[in-house]
């Protein structure tokens, strides 16, 4: 059986005066000091005036009775019993003349002090417990209003950045317009126009490349000029406007104006 020892009213615990009731209460105590405090209260005097001798007697009596019922008393109760028995003997016998031990009266008053201190702490704990507690007696704001964090972006840009950005893009754009080459591609019509002009004067066999080089200032354009001129010249051969010949692989391509007379040159067949 466990005895409820109400903390709020420790003194009011109903144990009655009969010893057997006390015996079964032993594990209701929070240690030997608690038991001693309870026994001290039974002396019904101010704890300052407590008789430690009487208290020791009561404790030893209690332990003796308890042991006759239950053998398995906790060690610290027995240690306390042994210490109290020793204290009792010191208190009863005349003090030896010289000893390392503190006087018995001092030991007794230390014990009394500890009991008073325990009682005081318990009273303090009770006062603490009786204070209005948050969430039990008093309440904070039930619906605190959160702080909204507004992320505001500060844009960093200086007038220098702005002017540089403006000038750079305007300048890049303006310059790119000027340098934009008029013809990266020499169109077929450009080629036709040039070749028409060439053969208009009654051209005799002429290397196409020699003529073309007049138009090719930039070596990078050589390919487009050559391709367009060659394609156009083939077209002109088909139309019967010019003759074309090549004497061997990688040899210069020669062209000439076709003579009005229908006589055909044996070498007239164009080579691819």
């Amino acid at each position, binding site marked *: 059986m466990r005895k409820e020892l109400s903390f709020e009213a420790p003194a009011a615990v109903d144990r009655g005066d009969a010893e057997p009731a006390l015996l079964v209460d032993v594990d209701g105590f929070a240690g030997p000091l608690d038991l001693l405090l309870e026994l001290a209260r039974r002396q019904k005097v101010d704890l300052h005036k407590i008789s430690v001798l009487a208290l020791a007697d009561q404790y030893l009596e209690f332990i003796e009775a308890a042991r006759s019922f239950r053998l398995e008393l906790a060690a610290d109760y027995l240690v306390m019993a042994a210490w109290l028995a020793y204290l009792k003997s010191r208190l009863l016998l005349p003090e030896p003349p010289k000893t390392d031990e503190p006087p018995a009266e001092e030991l007794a008053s230390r014990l009394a002090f500890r009991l008073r201190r325990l009682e005081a702490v318990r009273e303090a704990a009770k006062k603490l417990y009786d204070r209005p507690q948050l969430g039990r007696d008093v309440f904070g704001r039930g619906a605190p209003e959160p702080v909204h*964090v507004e992320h505001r972006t500060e*844009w960093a840009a200086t007038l220098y950045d702005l002017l540089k*950005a403006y*000038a*750079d*893009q305007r300048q890049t754009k303006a*310059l790119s317009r000027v340098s934009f080459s008029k013809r990266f591609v020499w169109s077929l019509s450009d080629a036709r126009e040039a070749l028409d002009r060439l053969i208009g004067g009654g051209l005799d066999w002429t290397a196409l490349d020699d003529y073309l080089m007049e138009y090719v200032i930039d070596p990078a354009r050589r390919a487009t000029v050559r391709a367009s001129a060659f394609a156009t010249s083939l077209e002109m051969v088909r139309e019967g406007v010019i003759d074309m010949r090549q004497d061997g692989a990688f040899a210069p391509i020669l062209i000439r104006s076709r003579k009005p007379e229908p006589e055909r040159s044996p070498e007239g067949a164009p080579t691819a």
Partner: protein
Amino acid sequence: MSRAFAAERQRSISEPKAFLEACRVAEALLFAAAEPLDADTLASRLPRDVPVADVLVQLREDYADRGVQLVEVAGRWTFRTAEDLSYLLAREAQETRKLSRAALETLAVVAYHQPVTRAEIEDIRGVSAHRGTLDALLETGWIRLRGRRRTPGRPVTYGTTEAFLSHFGLSAVDDLPGVDELKGAGFLDGRLPAGFTVPVPSDDPTLRSDEDPLDEDLFTLIAEEKASAVEDPLGDEDER
């Protein structure tokens, strides 16, 4: 003794003590509740002979001028920070960001060429406007929608704002340097073709003769502009 306290005592003479106590209880309940309370819930906790409506009216008056107020939200009652103090509950977290090069260039074009349409900006910059660049600029508060150009498609015209002037420390937009000043300051070099000009900017809020006022609301406009923006796979945002 404070005046407020004196006022309380005075009130307690003319009003039944039970009413004052009911006010205190209602006040505490409303304060501690995690959610707004309805009148019935409050009434169930008050003395029966005290009308809860009177208590709420009294509390609302008591707090009318205070930093917190009793407000009714969807038929329930709660204490809330006074509206004029709501700024107390907002904390600004400021972060500084750099404008992207594309945004900076677009901003510059708007500043010099305003009023200017998106198509004109693209033409001047020689790159299609990245979706979001103008949005981002509108967000800075430095450019604004001015009106609509009276041309087919009625495109929106953009201009700069006063916030733009104040951020860049300009007293007026025509303080922006002209072509000679830009050359003098080394922003432009000498390789420019003849006839290269920089407009004299003007942010005169009066609409030009070829501008119509914006009649739609701003959100419609922004949505419309967004929809028309070409998603540029070579987004100039990625230029750098």
